[in-house]
């Protein structure tokens, strides 16, 4: 039995990271892609700037207005500098510690930080992954925008080399499987999407297959041969169609799918006509029942071309 193949069958192509829980079950998290991370970072930067302004603006106004003696100005200046430094350097640390790996920006983007082995997120990890941000992001950005300020007076080749090195660090998340920054690698963390799936009603619930009595009266009867054509992949594609085809094109989509299936399994329509949706639901229920029964015996037919179960 291989749960991995089931999970990867119709899952959209995001990278996943598996974590083994203490109970011995493998949980899969979807890795946050660089776009999500950049979005979250931009939002966080905005919040940081906003906080800085709120904290420091009163001081600036006081200075400009010329209020206060020089001694109180000195205190205010010290306060402003300190607050600015603390917010700039510890915003991320503060939030990631308090909110278990989330910052306001990350919350908006729907991602969070977890330990790569699934263990609890430690303080050290949060500190480490954030302290390297200076070198990974701020310096490379400075290098790209104002290379002269970064390495004043150095020979041209040295500045070029340092700029190249910094750009490599900035682009590092693009080049590894889990999209981790160097800070993530140093801290043993990874950023994943916060899991969020809505439970939809079971497709089988509204069909006659739910109870034996109704099944006997249904016009949609399929032989074993007809049900042996398709595999798990097609079943889940059909589920996707039944759940997600909406709007004006739904009827058309369903009729196309129904026709395809009817032709493939050579099912003959009953004389009184039939409805595409009912047919598809009944077929789905019957196919799922058959495939689940075989799965219990350890036989998993992955798709229509899979002959290994014969």
């Amino acid at each position, binding site marked *: 039995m291989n749960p991995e193949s089931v999970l990867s069958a119709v899952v959209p192509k995001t990278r996943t990271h598996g974590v083994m829980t203490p109970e011995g079950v493998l949980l899969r998290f979807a890795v946050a892609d660089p776009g999500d991370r950049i979005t979250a970072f931009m939002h966080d930067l905005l919040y940081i700037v906003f906080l800085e302004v709120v904290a420091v603006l009163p001081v600036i106004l006081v200075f400009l207005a010329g209020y206060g003696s020089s001694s109180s100005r000195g205190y205010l200046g010290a306060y402003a500098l300190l607050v600015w430094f603390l917010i700039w350097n510890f915003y991320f640390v503060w939030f990631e510690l308090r909110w278990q790996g989330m910052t306001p920006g990350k919350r908006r983007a729907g991602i969070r930080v977890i330990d790569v082995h699934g263990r*609890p*997120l430690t303080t050290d990890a949060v500190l480490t992954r954030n302290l390297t941000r200076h070198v990974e992001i701020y310096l490379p950005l400075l290098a790209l925008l104002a290379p002269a300020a970064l390495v004043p007076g150095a020979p041209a080749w040295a500045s070029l080399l340092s700029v190249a090195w910094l750009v490599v660090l900035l682009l590092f998340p693009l080049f590894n499987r889990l999209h981790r920054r160097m800070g993530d690698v140093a801290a043993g963390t990874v950023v994943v999407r916060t899991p969020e799936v809505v439970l939809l009603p079971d497709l*089988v619930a509204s069909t006659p297959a739910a109870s034996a009595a109704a099944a006997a009266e249904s016009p949609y009867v399929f032989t074993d041969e007809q049900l042996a054509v398709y595999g798990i992949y097609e079943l889940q594609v059909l589920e996707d169609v039944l759940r997600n085809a909406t709007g004006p094109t739904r009827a058309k989509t369903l009729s196309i799918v129904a026709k395809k299936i009817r032709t493939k399994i050579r099912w003959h329509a009953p004389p009184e006509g039939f409805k595409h949706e009912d047919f598809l639901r009944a077929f789905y229920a019957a196919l799922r029942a058959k495939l689940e029964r075989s799965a219990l015996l350890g036989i998993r037919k992955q798709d229509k071309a899979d002959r290994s179960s014969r």
Partner: protein
Amino acid sequence: MAWELRSFAFRRERESYWRELMSLLDKVERHGLKRLTAPELERLPILYRQVVGSLSLARAISLDRNLLDFLESLAARAYLAVYGTRTPALVVVRTFFFERFPRAFRTTWLQFSLALGLLALGVAVGWVLTLRNLDHYYALVPASVAQDRGPLSTTESLRSVLYQKVNVETASLTAFSSFLFTHNAKVGILAFALGFAFGVPVILLMFSNGLILGAMAALYQTRGLGWDFWGWVLPHGVTELMAIAICGGAGFTLARAVIFPGRDTRAQALARKGRVAGALAFGTVACFFIAGLIEGYFRQLVHNPLVRYSFATLTLVLWLAYFSSAGRKKTVP
């Protein structure tokens, strides 16, 4: 033949538990664990195990894609809620400064010594070079640090720097102090973060800082102000140089993990050593804060060289005591 889908029956049995867990998790994620009542708090791990069991079972018997995705996501959310630890902020700070920071220092004392050695080497080289030829001062000391003090300054102007008769306005001292703190902390963090580059920038950083100090010392030496100069530097210098060396040591720890991962993969080695290095770098921010206070206040207010030297010795002894004995008692990490 009469049959009923097992997966359907399974879901019917358990759906109420899943919905209960979902509402609990919504509460936890919005407001934190504290908002849960005691019975709810008891229910959470039970429901978590239940849903993890359901997930295992569903993977085996169900082919409903939506159900599988839902259980995956629910189990993951519950896992993060149950296994995420939350320690109060004060406890975090206390364990950090009394246990984690000194212990991290002791584990990496070799890298610290290397960084300190490079600093000392830089000082020695800068000192010797500048003594031989005062023009080296211009090469070694950048203009921003020299601030118009150089071989061309008069001895009196140099002396006045060491014993600045500052108008004692504590407020401006505070401002000066906090400026120094933020500036030095930035340098420290940089030293740590550059450890990724196989330690080479860290070596350069340590050495060049040492050169600057050595060159300035030599300049003052030639004017017969050597004793006064070190009295000016050491009260805060002990703390600050130590902090810079710790940051350099943290950088070297990272470099060591990258260059010599041992039996682990580089990522694993980095993860292990990286947390230690990060803790060190964070701790040095506190050291820079202290150094900034000393530099901003003490140095401007106290001018007696003997007092300055005693203070420097005192700080040295205190730091030695702190790093050698704090956190040695076996407490739960």
